[in-house]
């Protein structure tokens, strides 16, 4: 029996349901219709219908199934309307088949839950297909699989809404015209394509986490969405250690979210964060996940990065950080996914574990290659080691270079403070490290 709830509650339920269920309904309809736009329109219609009828008539027992069924019926209506406009025989025949397939969608019985899961898994591989531009993959995944509206995504990426809408239109057109398949890739393609899906989720998370500009609420939503989608992919493709690793990595970083932004919205560096504000529940979940992943014996870059994040999260004070272990993990990461940025992080960890002189020698090697010359963190990290070695003139030059390159206000403030410190003769040369 439908339960009667106050209209306000029905509105909130529709809102929550939109986030949780729209991707599911769209995925099912796209499978049958082979058409993103028609599927999205039908699902949108269904949510409008829910907003119109539920406050008065009560919320159905299984609201998610109601949405899918209503969307299916709206899609049938739309197909029929199109039929009246079209005289092409092949279109008519195709639409008739589609209509009977639409009728076959039944979201109620439990055995269809698996079929719905398969629909979403197929769709995520379509949205993250390497033939789409990376920004299109990100936008499409959030729009079609996530619970974000086009204006929300545009706000999160600081883009004008028409630009984002255009990006989505182009991506959908390419999927159709280029024949991008709607399926889980075969075994020989799966590892590569799964890595692609994880990369999209990682970018979505970082967009919501790393930047401090833009609408904080929407950015939080982006990170939450990335975590939600990673959980979904994990449920659909269980026991893939890199999926678990990415999910753990995101949780272990997200746990510090409250502590990394100060009262005026400025970024607070890891060393200066109030660790009592870290989310212990998220940390525990992330740790359990990364341990489970590593026990599978198929390590990968996300698992290693998650293990590093876990070591930082475990330390109750910065001084308690196990830098030796972190350096070992960065060495493993550098072997799996070599990059100068990983080398730099390794050098930082080594400097913390074995002293600044060893770390500095490694950083000088990185600096000599010139690859990170415009990367502010190289100069900031070198400056810190030079300062700790009391090589003040060189430290000041490196701080100056870092200040010139960084665009983040909080980091500039920090670097300037250090620059003054090393440039002032006779002053106590050490702040706490």
């Amino acid at each position, binding site marked *: 029996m439908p339960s009667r709830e106050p209209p306000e509650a029905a509105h909130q339920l529709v809102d929550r349901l939109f986030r949780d269920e729209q991707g599911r309904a769209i995925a099912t309809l796209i499978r049958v219709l082979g058409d993103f736009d028609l599927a999205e329109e039908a699902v949108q219609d269904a949510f409008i219908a829910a907003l119109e009828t539920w406050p008065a008539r009560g919320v159905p027992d299984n609201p998610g199934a109601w949405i899918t069924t209503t969307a299916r019926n709206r899609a049938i209506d739309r197909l029929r309307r199109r039929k009246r406009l079209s005289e092409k025989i092949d279109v008519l025949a195709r639409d008739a088949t589609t209509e009977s397939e639409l009728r076959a969608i039944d979201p109620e019985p439990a055995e269809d839950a698996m079929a719905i899961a398969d629909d979403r898994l197929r769709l995520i591989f379509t949205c993250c*297909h390497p*033939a789409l531009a990376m920004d299109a993959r990100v936008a499409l995944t959030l729009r079609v699989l996530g619970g974000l509206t086009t204006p929300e995504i545009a706000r999160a990426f600081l883009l004008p809404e028409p630009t984002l809408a255009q990006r989505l239109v182009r991506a959908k057109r390419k999927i159709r*015209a*280029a*024949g*991008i*398949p709607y399926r889980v*890739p075969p075994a020989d*393609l799966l590892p590569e394509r799964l890595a692609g899906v994880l990369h999209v989720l990682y970018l979505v998370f970082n967009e919501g986490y790393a930047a401090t500009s833009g609408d904080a609420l929407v950015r939080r939503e982006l990170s939450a969405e990335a975590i939600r989608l990673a959980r979904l992919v994990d449920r659909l493709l269980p026991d893939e250690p890199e999926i678990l690793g990415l999910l753990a990595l995101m949780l272990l970083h997200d746990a510090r979210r409250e502590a990394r932004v100060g009262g005026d919205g400025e970024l607070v560096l890891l060393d200066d964060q109030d660790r009592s504000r870290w989310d212990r529940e998220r940390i525990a979940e992330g740790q359990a996940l990364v341990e489970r992943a590593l026990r599978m014996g198929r390590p990968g870059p996300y698992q290693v990065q998650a293990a590093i994040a876990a070591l930082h999260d475990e330390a109750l004070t910065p001084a308690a950080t196990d830098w030796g272990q972190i350096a070992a993990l960065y060495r493993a990461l550098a072997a799996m996914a070599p990059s100068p940025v990983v080398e730099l992080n390794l050098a930082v960890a080594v400097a913390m574990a074995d002293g600044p002189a060893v770390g500095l020698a490694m950083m000088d090697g990185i600096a000599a290659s010139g690859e990170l010359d415009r990367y502010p963190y190289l100069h900031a990290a070198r400056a810190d080691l030079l300062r700790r070695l009391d090589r003040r003139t060189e430290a000041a030059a490196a701080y100056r270079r870092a200040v010139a390159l960084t665009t983040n206000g909080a980091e500039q403030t920090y670097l300037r403070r250090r620059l003054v410190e090393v440039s002032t003769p006779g002053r106590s040369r050490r702040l706490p490290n």
Partner: protein
Amino acid sequence: MQYALLIYGQERSEEVPEDLMAAEFGAYETLTAFLRDRGAMKGGEALEPTATATTVRVRDGKTLTTDGPFAETKEALGGFYLVEAADLDEAIRFAAMIPGATRGSIEIRPVFDVPYATADASQAGG
């Protein structure tokens, strides 16, 4: 779906030794046979280098003819396959098998399904 696999690469400035040339042709023949066996081969040709190209434009009813390719680029169109593939993934698989893919690039273009082609027109060609 049909796809054109356009083979782009740097044109060789000097004469290629005969044995290398033969190996290259052999590799292409193997691929062509593979596509033919699967019923995926719809056509394809190798092209003479851009030094032999002529570009034609009609403006105000006048035919303008110039020597050379449409655009001077580092990588030039050297040949193409026309294939039937289930979807883009299969087309990508075929494209990756083209010998030239290891040196140059293969551009995959879906063949446009002309909506108003009548049965007569499609038979007119042969």
